[in-house]
């Protein structure tokens, strides 16, 4: 059905949570996005990155997963139902952070905003508040609880939106460029948080991003959209960043380390294989050098 298989690694055999097959959406003004090519798949417990240039259709794809847009062609399945038609059946299982967080914050104070979903789902007030405080704590923003969301700084708003998405402990987390506007320390913290959510609670996370450097650390696998929406490339970060021509299709620059190692190898074929984290890279480079020292 699709050309790629997820039959390697720890996810082999995992349940499919999301599948998108050749979906087309035409906006009112005639702009058409055709998410075809490969099928998009997300498996239970997987962290999936969606890459692609501006305007390629990442947000459009996520909106289909959230049932906000209805496909005119092709099929979208989330938890085995069509999200556009049966959203009420699955929405409790899904947490969302949209690209423009300003639109997402609804309540008059931060704590009310984060407690919005549990209250709407009818949880007791005490539990709603406890969940909200826990979520704020996860993101390290307890001190913002009584502020007015509208008055926060850009990065603070995004953290509040994240807390609101996590508060119901969803099985599927959909994040549209969650790193935008976060400072580096918060980025790292968020990356760690996502890893632990995926590992400990088996949460499935789908994230669109332009921050290539977070991909190796974050993603189990990634999809790359080409302009117009074509799902052009699929692979693990290692596969993806190993070959420059694959990336060129998605108009993507490899992470700095990948580029560094690629360029080193051009000069010296004996240079080590690309490392994707700084500590791996340090080890690899030290090895490389010491082996040179030992050789003669």
């Amino acid at each position, binding site marked *: 059905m699709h050309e790629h298989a997820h039959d390697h690694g720890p996810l082999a055999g995992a349940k499919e949570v999301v599948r998108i097959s050749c979906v087309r959406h035409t906006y009112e003004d005639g702009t058409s996005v055709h998410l075809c090519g490969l099928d998009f798949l997300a498996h239970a417990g997987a962290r999936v990155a969606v890459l692609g240039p501006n305007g390629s259709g990442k947000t459009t794809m996520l909106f289909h997963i*959230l049932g*906000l847009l209805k496909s005119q062609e092709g099929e979208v399945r989330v938890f085995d139902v069509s999200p556009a038609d049966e*959203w*009420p059946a699955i*929405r*409790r299982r*899904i947490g*969302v952070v*949209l690209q423009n967080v300003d*639109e*997402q914050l*609804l*309540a*008059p*104070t931060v704590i*009310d905003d984060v*407690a*919005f*979903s*549990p*209250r*709407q*789902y*009818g949880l007791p*007030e005490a539990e*709603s*508040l406890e969940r909200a405080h826990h979520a704020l704590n996860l993101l390290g923003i307890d001190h913002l609880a009584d502020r*007015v969301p*509208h008055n926060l700084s850009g990065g603070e708003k995004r953290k509040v939106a994240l807390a*609101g998405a996590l508060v*119901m402990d969803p099985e599927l987390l959909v994040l549209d460029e969650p790193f935008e506007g976060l400072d580096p320390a918060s980025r790292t913290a968020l990356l760690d948080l996502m890893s632990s959510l995926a590992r400990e609670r088996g949460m499935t996370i789908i994230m669109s991003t332009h921050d290539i450097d977070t991909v190796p650390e974050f993603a189990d696998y990634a999809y790359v959209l080409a302009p117009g929406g074509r799902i052009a490339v699929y692979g693990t970060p290692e596969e993806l960043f190993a070959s420059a021509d694959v990336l060129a299709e998605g108009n993507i620059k490899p992470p700095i380390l990948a580029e560094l190692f690629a360029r080193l190898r051009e000069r010296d074929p004996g240079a080590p294989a690309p490392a994707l984290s700084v500590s791996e890279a340090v080890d690899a480079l030290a090895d490389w050098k010491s082996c040179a020292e030992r050789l003669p």
Partner: protein
Amino acid sequence: MDITAVDRSAVLGDTLLHRAAPTSKLVGAGLLLGAIVTVNDPLVAAGLALSLAGAAAAVGLPLRQMLPLALYPALFAIVFAFAAAPGPATGALFVLKAVTAALTVVTLMFSTPYPQVFAPIQRITPTIVGDALLMTYRSLFILAEKFSDLLRAVRLRSGVSARQPVRAARATARALGGLLLYSLDLSQREYDILRLRGYEGGMRVRRQVSTDRSADVAALLYAALILAVVVVFRALPHELGGYAWLVTVVGAVDLTTGLLIGRRT
């Protein structure tokens, strides 16, 4: 209509009234409206208006921001009084009723976050009406915000030059047209988000309980007392009519003390 100021005061304020339960405040406002409908002596009505303003000042509500909203209806009431009242006394009564009623609701809105006011309304209206009421209020914020963004953007990106009014008017018209469509789309998205985050029609809000029993008691007692005074004066016009000025004086004293207390805290 500075709706963000209302919201800010309602959410961030911490006065005695803020601490009372919304239900008490709604009941109290109802009692006061009853008094306003009942009152038929301008001197009593004046006392009521003064006393209410005094109470708002005493608890520390931002009277300066509230007054413009409360006095706005007076404009219309004056016109109405000129047109319809048989005499100056009745005319004054009409105006005072309008101002007092406005002051009542404005006091409520300045001390109670809007979800708390809307939740009971949503409970008694059809779902779609309650939903739409909430969306309207949200859209008001969006519009207000978008409008100030617009003004800021215009200022940053050129400023409207007074020397070219036609050009300025055309740009404004274009911007307003865009604003209309933008707000339609944004409301749609806002509603989507509400639904994404679990809204199913009918806002479920935290049952805000009173954090200060005495605040509820004070609010209800105050409203009941006023209603009682008004009813007594209405029931015994011949016996008490001559003493109505006393109510005005008491109101004036209320206002003075209220302002003094408000300044102190």
